[in-house]
């Protein structure tokens, strides 16, 4: 067993050396396809975190009906469970804020006082993100509140966007992965052809099928593995740079990149396994189709 393993390893490295450039190209394609896949996974993890951040920072806005009892409504909101902070924005203040956000306060001239179309608003912060929808519903049911809104629009847009990105990246990754597998099939096929004579002699010498096949399987897996190793290293370096950049610039809190190893390590390990698996699949296909034992 041990002796056979040593033979297989030696044979495998001889083949890898013989097909050196093809191995390099194949490993590179695997690297690129997995780097894209890995990049997509990293983006997905980060987008998820951003969404969580946005959601937790979301305020509930309770729009009041004209002439509602502001003090009473404020009281009732404060007494609801899970409310952390309540801020009242009168229609006049609202108009000023709106004007500022437009960047041109003159635009709204003439809308002051009774002509103001904006409602009075309570802005409410919840103690945690997950109770926001429930809380918004309760607040919306209070008499005098026209409706309560918590930026579900923004959240659903983010989700939509990531859905699109997911599909796009998945499509590209799958195509590249198929290309990589195909290249592995070709490389292993060349190895098989180069060793055709030796294989036929081995059969006459009584070699087992596994003994003949194993070096080729190993060769494919090593190619896949090399490719992934390169891609994870490049990806890791790039991600580190970006993460460091985002962290040093005092950007808005929800753009903080994911840096916790519990989330990143599984991605990188997964990529390495996937690359090795791709190599294994490629060589298995090739062995099945081109190696007659």
């Amino acid at each position, binding site marked *: *067993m041990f*002796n*056979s393993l040593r*033979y297989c390893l030696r044979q495998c490295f001889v083949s890898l050396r013989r097909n050196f450039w093809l191995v390099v190209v194949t490993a590179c394609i695997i690297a690129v396809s997995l780097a894209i896949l890995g990049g997509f996974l990293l983006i997905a993890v980060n987008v998820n975190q951003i969404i969580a951040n946005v959601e937790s920072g979301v305020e509930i806005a309770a729009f009041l009906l004209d002439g509602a009892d502001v003090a009473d409504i404020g009281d009732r909101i404060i007494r609801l469970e899970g409310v952390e902070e309540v801020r009242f924005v009168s229609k006049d203040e609202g108009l000023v804020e709106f004007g500022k956000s437009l960047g041109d306060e003159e635009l709204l001239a003439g809308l002051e006082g009774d002509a103001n179309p904006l409602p009075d608003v309570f802005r409410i912060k919840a103690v945690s993100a997950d109770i926001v929808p429930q809380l918004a519903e309760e607040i919306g049911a209070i008499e005098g509140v026209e409706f309560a809104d918590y930026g579900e629009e923004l959240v659903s847009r983010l989700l939509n966007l990531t859905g699109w990105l997911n599909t796009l990246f998945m499509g590209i990754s799958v195509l590249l992965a198929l290309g990589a597998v195909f290249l592995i099939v070709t490389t292993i096929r060349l190895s098989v052809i180069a060793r055709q004579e*030796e294989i*036929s002699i081995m059969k*006459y*010498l*009584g*070699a087992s099928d596994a003994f003949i096949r194993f070096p080729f399987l190993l060769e494919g897996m090593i190619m896949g593995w090399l490719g992934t190793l390169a891609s994870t290293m490049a990806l890791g370096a790039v991600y580190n740079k970006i993460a460091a950049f985002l962290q040093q610039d005092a950007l808005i809190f929800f753009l903080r990149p994911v840096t916790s190893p519990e989330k990143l390590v599984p991605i990188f390990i997964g990529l390495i396994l996937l690359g090795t698996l791709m190599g294994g699949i490629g060589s298995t296909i090739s062995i099945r189709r081109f190696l007659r034992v």
Partner: protein
Amino acid sequence: MIIFNNVTKIYPGSKIPAIRDLTTEITRGEFVFLVGPSGAGKSTFIKLLFREQLPTKGTIYFEGKNIARLTKGQLLRHRRQIGMVFQDFRLLKQKTVYENVAFALEVLGRSPRVIRQKVPDALAKVGLLGKEKSFPSELSGGEQQRVGVARALVKDPLIVLADEPTGNLDRENSRQLMDLFETINKEGTTVIIATHAWDLVDRMQKRVIALDKGRLVRDEKRGSYDV
């Protein structure tokens, strides 16, 4: 040790049998020549024994076992008891003499210790000590074929099968090779040789099985090439 029982072999896509209703027995320690004109079925006989081909009809027993019925593991064991020698030597060009012979043991998963011990023995038997580091291209045809024989012998086979082993050798080398086979046979290994070398067959006075168009036409204890 070997029994052919009404064996017929028809290759797929061909109508004429390569072996036709052949029945014979070969016992342990025998030295057998298979002779006959081209296309008589000599190579087919050897392929059937190695179970490279399966008989279309009839049964072949090897050491009491129907070799058509072997499991995968048994088939490997069957083939490992057989040392094959080829007309075209089939040595690996990029390996040295030593490595070619050692290869037969590596393939079987033998340890380096066993290999270091057995390979020189086998090379000594065929008279190639001192040529270990040569490559096949640096050897004469006769020497190359002796490497082939050493490779077949190194795993201590029960039986050596040779298909026209002298086909690419001159008269002198052929004679030496046959003497080598005789020595191997005297040490207890069964030897079966398919050949056209009538002069050698006549000289050796061994059992001769003659085939013609797949039929066994003659079987003599101390035979000659022709009737």
